């Protein structure tokens, strides 16, 4: 396997864009990434395109990648469509990485794009339910419910087991809103307080509105090439993909003691990159519901059971803490256009590692970073898809 570098990233701002179609959102992300990488469109030999809900919400059930890239001027090359729920974009990056790592291609493109805002929230939420196993969604199970009582997170039982409070659940939302307020690409740019988050309306007990990511349009793209060839295209510092792991949920009975799949996916990434969690300088993680960030601290090996809120109280994971988490604002502030999120995370980390993150730039420029992306829900008590990517400069 060859070393692979990200040489260009691009994004479309995240938000609700009434006048824009999916292709209008994808196009700027593709071209920003191409310009950033210094490649010509003809240099791109293969592309992987992540999108989750476009079939149900736009009616374009098939060949979405070919349609999006044709409107971006990229045709003729192999284009692979990737649907892996909220982890579609990270899965697309993995495809591009493997193409170059294997030597099958020298330059590859990964794109994630999503159009969730169609002016009909019930339809969007209905479509989103379709990325859970039907046996769950047909009975009215939603993602919010899954975070509240599903065994994989079970925030209600954490309150009893860890003594976590509703204020603890609000802490990641407040921390990340401060980062999002500095991000011109973010959907929500308002600094929230604990009181505002706790007092916003209850969606599914104990989750309130400001703890939940919202309906969002957005896109992000990355151009990857072999590390050796990076200098040929750009004077910018190449960002090496040190690990990229993908796992699927496992079926668990109640007495199953095996580690959570978010944890095993991270461990596999640490092993592949030859590092441990103590070597990380920054993280973007999948806080689709803000309190999930507290559980993910444990799963990524950043703290012991129940210690998540302490990392925020002690300033460890704030923008200029020892290990900033979600400098972009995360899914709740930056936004969660589901099939784009994994590459929005990657773009943010690349900008941070190059010192290009503007007002939200982490002062001590990160050298080793991790993106954690997951999606879907299975009957067997796990999410469907888990991805971890480790980047090194």
């Amino acid at each position: 396997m060859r070393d692979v570098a990200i040489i260009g990233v691009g994004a479309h701002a995240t938000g609700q864009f009434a006048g824009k179609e999916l292709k209008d959102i994808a196009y700027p992300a593709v071209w920003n990434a191409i310009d950033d990488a210094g490649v010509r469109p003809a240099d791109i030999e293969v592309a992987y395109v992540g999108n989750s809900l476009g079939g149900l919400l736009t009616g374009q059930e098939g060949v979405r990648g070919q349609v999006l890239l044709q409107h971006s001027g990229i045709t003729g090359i192999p284009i692979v469509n990737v649907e892996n729920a909220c982890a579609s974009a990270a899965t697309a990056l993995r495809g591009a990485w493997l193409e170059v790592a294997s030597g099958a291609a020298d330059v590859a493109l990964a794109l994630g794009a999503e159009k969730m805002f169609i002016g009909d929230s019930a339809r969007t939420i209905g479509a989103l339910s379709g990325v859970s196993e039907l046996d769950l969604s047909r009975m009215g199970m939603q993602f919010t419910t899954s975070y509240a009582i599903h065994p994989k997170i079970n925030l209600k039982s954490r309150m009893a087991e860890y003594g976590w409070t509703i204020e603890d659940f609000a802490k990641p939302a407040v921390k990340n809103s401060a980062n999002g307020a500095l991000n011109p690409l973010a959907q929500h740019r308002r600094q929230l307080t604990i009181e505002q988050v706790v007092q916003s309306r209850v969606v599914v007990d104990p989750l309130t509105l400001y703890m939940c990511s919202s309906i969002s349009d957005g896109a992000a793209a990355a151009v990857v090439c072999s590390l050796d060839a990076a200098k040929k295209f750009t004077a910018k510092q190449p960002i090496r993909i040190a690990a990229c792991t993908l796992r699927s949920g496992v079926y668990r009975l109640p007495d199953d003691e095996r580690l959570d799949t978010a944890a095993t996916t991270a461990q596999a990434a640490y092993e592949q990159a030859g590092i441990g969690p103590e070597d990380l300088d920054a993280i973007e993680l999948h806080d689709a519901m803000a309190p999930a960030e507290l559980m993910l601290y444990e799963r990524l090996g950043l703290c012991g059971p129940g210690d998540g809120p302490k990392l925020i109280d002690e300033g460890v994971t704030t923008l200029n803490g020892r290990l900033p988490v979600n400098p972009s604002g995360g899914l709740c502030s930056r936004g969660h256009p589901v099939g784009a999120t994994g590459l929005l995370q990657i773009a943010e980390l690349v900008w941070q590692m190059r010192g290009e993150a503007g007002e939200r730039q982490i002062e001590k420029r990160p050298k080793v970073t991790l993106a954690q992306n997951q999606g879907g829900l299975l009957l067997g008590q796990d999410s469907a898809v888990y991805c971890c990517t480790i980047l090194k400069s």
Partner: protein
Amino acid sequence: MRDIEIGRRGRLYSHTIARFAPKGFNAPYFQAFIDLDEGPRIFSLIGAECPVEDGVLDDGMEMQLVIEPLADTPENKEILSYKYVPAKAHGDA
């Protein structure tokens, strides 16, 4: 291969009240996970006989099966579903 019958009884693993409903359901409504006596843990709604209020259900309590319409809505009233309610002392699902 042989069929086995499961699911008449179990214990409430976790529950919440959803204050917002997708199309086809009426909020507020209970959502729950039930640990069946035979082993599997399943997602389920709670039978209509239970008033949707805090304090009605306790995690760990014994539950029993009921069969009733999935929801009292045009989309789901014709669909029969399994649900659970707190077990009656001498009751029989």
